């Protein structure tokens, strides 16, 4: 039982904190908002040089073999700087789906290129009608003479427009037309039949909604051997939620620090805001919730390789609890900044929006408390 960082982990954290503080300044962020790509390829190259893109990839595939704790350290630092590089899409989700499902040939073809920063991925899974139900996919994949034909619509594809390849989930249509197993397909950017409606994402980065109309793919576009992809998707999304939780903790900590600073400095009725007992207590609650969120993000990371029910309970528990804390912390940070908090003049608004996006991604608190209760045998999901 040891929850202290190893020396390597401490070094990783320090270098990430330093790099983020130096690179992701307020000015950088204001520029990035207007960037049609949503992030900087030059910085992405630096991520590769720092070894961050190789972090969770197995050594056999050109990676460093790191785990959820290391990912969490990076993500927390990214949160502090509101980093909008597609690390979650490409490394945490994309590379992990390839590693979980791909054939050895696919892994060899894709993972080293991710590690060296030469390939970006996105994951197109959610559909409007499914809301946050990971198992519900209406997009279909039909076997053709020489490959596959995909049809359907996806929403909330993070970093989709900048991705070199999009991993698309679809149900393989059976011979009788009924829908069957869930499968994942590698769809190169620009494939005919793919329509992206790109948008600026709340709190930074880009996203898109995606239509697939008779998208023709070669046979080897299927990731892996065609066995049901749902367990892998659940594994990867659980770990992605742990990583997002760590990112949220970084964001919340920054909001707390900034708000403490502001309430000490800002004077009203002749004394600092922080002289008000109500504000002092509110900040005590904010600090407490940041700490609870930190505990839960750590817990989800430590359980990332546990058996599925334990892993999913930890992940859903973390997503639910951190989401609740994030909402409180974000709303209070804005409230205590007063009128300045509800403008785009300060960074506070961007951090607020990124937490709102966090809460929405993969489902909010109520959804995950319900999933937790179902996994605990208390309710039927």
């Amino acid at each position, binding site marked *: 039982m040891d929850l202290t960082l190893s020396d390597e982990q401490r070094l990783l954290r320090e270098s990430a904190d330093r790099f983020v503080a130096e690179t992701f300044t307020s000015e950088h962020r204001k520029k990035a908002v207007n960037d049609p790509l949503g992030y900087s390829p030059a910085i992405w190259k630096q991520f590769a040089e720092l070894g961050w893109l190789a972090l969770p990839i197995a050594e056999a595939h050109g990676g460093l073999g790191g785990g959820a704790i290391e990912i969490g350290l990076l993500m927390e630092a990214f949160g502090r700087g509101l980093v909008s590089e597609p690390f979650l899409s490409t490394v945490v989700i994309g590379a992990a789906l390839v590693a979980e499902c791909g054939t050895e040939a696919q892994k060899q073809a894709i993972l080293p290129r991710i590690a060296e920063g030469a390939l970006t991925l996105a994951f197109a899974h*959610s*559909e*409007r*009608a*499914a*809301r*946050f139900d990971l198992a519900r996919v209406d997009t279909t994949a039909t076997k053709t003479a020489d490959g596959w034909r995909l049809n359907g619509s996806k*929403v*909330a594809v993070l970093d989709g427009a900048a991705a070199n390849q999009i991993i698309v989930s679809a149900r393989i249509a059976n011979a009788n037309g009924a829908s069957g197993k869930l499968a994942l397909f590698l769809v190169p950017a620009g494939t005919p039949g793919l329509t992206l*409606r*790109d*948008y*600026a*994402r*709340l709190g930074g980065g880009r*996203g*898109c*909604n995606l239509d697939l109309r008779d998208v023709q793919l070669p046979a080897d576009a299927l990731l892996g051997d065609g066995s049901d992809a749902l367990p892998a998707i659940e594994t990867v999304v659980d770990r992605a939620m742990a990583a997002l939780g760590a990112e949220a903790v970084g964001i919340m900590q920054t909001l707390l620090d900034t708000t403490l600073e502001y309430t000490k400095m800002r*004077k*009203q*009725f002749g004394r600092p805001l922080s002289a*008000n007992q*109500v*504000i002092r207590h509110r900040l005590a609650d904010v600090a407490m919730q940041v700490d609870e969120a930190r505990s839960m993000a750590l817990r989800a990371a430590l359980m990332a390789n546990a058996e599925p029910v334990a892993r999913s309970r930890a992940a859903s528990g973390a997503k639910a609890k951190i989401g609740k804390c994030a909402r409180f912390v974000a*709303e209070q940070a*804005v*409230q205590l900044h*007063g*009128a300045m*908090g*509800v*403008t*785009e*003049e300060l960074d506070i*608004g961007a951090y*607020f*929006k990124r937490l*709102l*996006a966090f809460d*929405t*991604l993969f489902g*909010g608190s*109520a*959804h995950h408390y*319900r999933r937790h209760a179902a996994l605990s045998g208390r309710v039927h999901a």
Partner: protein
Amino acid sequence: MDLTFSAEERAFEQEVRDYIAESLTPEMKRATALTPSVFSDPDIGMAWQRALHKKGWGAPGWPVEHGGPDWTPAQRWIFEAECARAGVPNVNVMGVKMVGPVIIGFGSREQQNFYLPRILSGEDYWCQGYSEPGSGSDLASLKTRAVRDGDDYVINGTKIWTTHAHHANRMFALVRTNEGERQQDGISFILIDMKTPGITTRPILTIGGDHEVNQVFFDDVRVPVANRVGEEGKGWTYGKYLLEFERGSGIASAKLREALKTITDLAGSEVTGRAIEDPDIAMRMSEVEVDIDALEMTELRVLSALQTGQNPGAVSSLIKLRVSEIRQAVTRLGVDVIGQDGLAVEPARPFYRLNHEPAIPEELLPVVPEYLNGRAYTIFGGSSEIQRDIIAKMVLGL
């Protein structure tokens, strides 16, 4: 005790409903639905003001001699409720509900004759110059100075959070004309033509991405002394009157009910994947609806007291706080209802006149900006913290 309206009042309700039906254009309605702000853009809001003025309903709260319709409190309730139900645009409240009553109460006959008809007709568009950087909830600490020079005041300083200053041709402002013993003394209430040389305006984008508010700078701005309302140094009193005037006259429950209905309709539709089937969302809708029921009853109790000539008393000071909290709950519900489509930011404005097809269905566009902008409900107009200070002191006698 009785919740029903009289036959006359029902007839009036029908009249309002009919007039709205004939004069509210589909464009106005769509623009209002797609505006993620409590302030309609002037092209929409002023068109509606003109329609109301045509009917003699341009200023429901004004005395009849200044062009008010001479309604009972119940009629005002019915009017506002019908407007909310129909989804009409917001008119220039800074004119009709704020500066108008002050000019009526304290302005000179000349000021009344000049300004009031222009508010009614929609010819003038007003903004309010109260807050300053660094004054916030402690309004009385304001520093913008008006120094007497012959028949003019020369104004220097800056105002902030000035809603629609970029649209307005007039501003009413609190300025410091004297250093009183108390901060509140020495403040005067002045009417300013926004075209006066020396006035510049800087836009401030809200957290939701809307251009609603501004910072306004005054650099040796000369305003005739004749533009002062009432006595010099009494501006604080007039400003407070403005707040009292509003007390109990507004109704918020009808608008909140409509806002909840909009969200409920979205939740029942395919466009949100039928979010209402999420039991958490369904329950929270009931929770918010019941909160609106409670608010409505409280508002009706105030109305009833006003009708029978009683003082509604302490209750009305609790209303602002609840309204802001319920508004935020409704907008939050909206965010949860639209789910992942809330990730898409549409920076262009107004939503009802986009030059491109948005990434998400049009009706979802205002939902997140409304939530974001709605964080201001508990901040502007006296933060919730200040409201609770006031309730503790004034209502509970602590």
